[in-house]
């Protein structure tokens, strides 16, 4: 099976999502070896997915969490109608408001966002075997991940080594840790 550029463009998004049949996948991989244009499109598409999938892109207006919790507290208070319920709800509201204020005073946006999320996303197990491409920036849980840019130059290492060397987890195959 041989594919032309047009065909590759129509399927490139499915390719990135690992949603093409094996024959087409193989034909596309052959094509990428020969065609710089299509490789550039593929690299760009993968970069976009990694960047937009990063939690740093989830920006919310200042005070969002605080206002949300205040509004919820009103309703939870109503639905509960017990003094204790109301107390708990209000206390939770104040506690959360407080932690948002603290978070906001942190200097870097990244620490800010990460610390809010840290509580919920599991850390990557340090001894997990992961895969990186030689000149890549992202580490993957499996060598089959369609987000690996150059599959001919992959090596495996421990997650802790990958993190030390400055790699960040793939938003797709390491989703539960991002």
């Amino acid at each position, binding site marked *: 099976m041989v594919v032309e550029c047009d065909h590759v463009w129509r399927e490139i998004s499915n390719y990135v999502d690992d949603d093409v049949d094996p024959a087409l996948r193989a034909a596309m991989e052959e094509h990428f070896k020969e065609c710089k244009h299509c490789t550039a499109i593929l690299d760009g598409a993968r970069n976009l997915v990694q960047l937009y999938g990063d939690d740093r892109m989830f920006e919310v207006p200042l005070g969002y969490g605080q206002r949300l919790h205040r509004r*919820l507290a009103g309703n939870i208070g109503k639905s509960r109608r017990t003094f204790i319920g109301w107390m708990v709800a209000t206390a939770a509201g104040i506690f959360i408001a407080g932690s948002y204020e603290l978070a906001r005073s942190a200097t870097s946006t990244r620490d800010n966002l990460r610390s809010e999320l840290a509580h919920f996303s599991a850390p990557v197990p340090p001894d997990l075997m992961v895969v990186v491409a030689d000149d890549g920036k992202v580490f993957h849980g499996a060598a089959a991940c369609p987000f690996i840019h150059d599959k001919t130059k992959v090596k495996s290492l421990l997650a802790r080594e990958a993190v030390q060397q400055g790699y960040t987890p793939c938003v797709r195959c390491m989703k539960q840790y991002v």
Partner: protein
Amino acid sequence: MPSLPGPPPGTTAQLTESDSSDEARLIVRVRDGEPELFYELIRPYERRVYAATFAILRNPANAEDAAQEALLKALKHIRQFRAESRFSTWLIQIAVNEARMRKRKENSDRTEPITQNADDQGEYKPRDFADWREIPSEVLERKEVREKLSGALTSLSQIYREVFVLRDVQQLSIEETSKALGISTASVKTRLLRARLMLRDMLAPGLGGQWSSKFSFSKGEKPW
């Protein structure tokens, strides 16, 4: 190609399982009379709910109000949640419905034409073929880069924006995206392809080139 080890079997599965069973327990407790636990239940998703309403409404104040309203509705209707879908998907679906309802109202108030069904068909040809290497996610530390990315996304028309945000920002699957938006999986794929290609063309001149090369690397190399 040499065969490479994947993650040890069970590692990721166990983790996901325990996370989701904690969540399932919380849902039951909220439903059975401990509404104050709702905070804990939704906290991991608050920001995503906002991202979903913002993708549709494109106005921070409206998006925030819609997000609050969506979460109140989720609390009110928590008994209707069925465990066969993910809780996060259910929340996003409520948020999408809330935002779309407001959008329709907004459009009818302004009597603007709705370009909902425009150009789902015609093919989109990429315009930029500049070489792209893998970009380190550290570029996101820079506000100007985040602004460029969200600006490009905001400029897409709604049908592409919604699909891209649910799939690529929120990491929903194709099926979950189709369910949340009430469109076929084939439409999700067509729109996603176009959204990705359009964004790529918009951002390639910056991200492929000058923004990322200004960035200094901790690994001490400049890969482009």
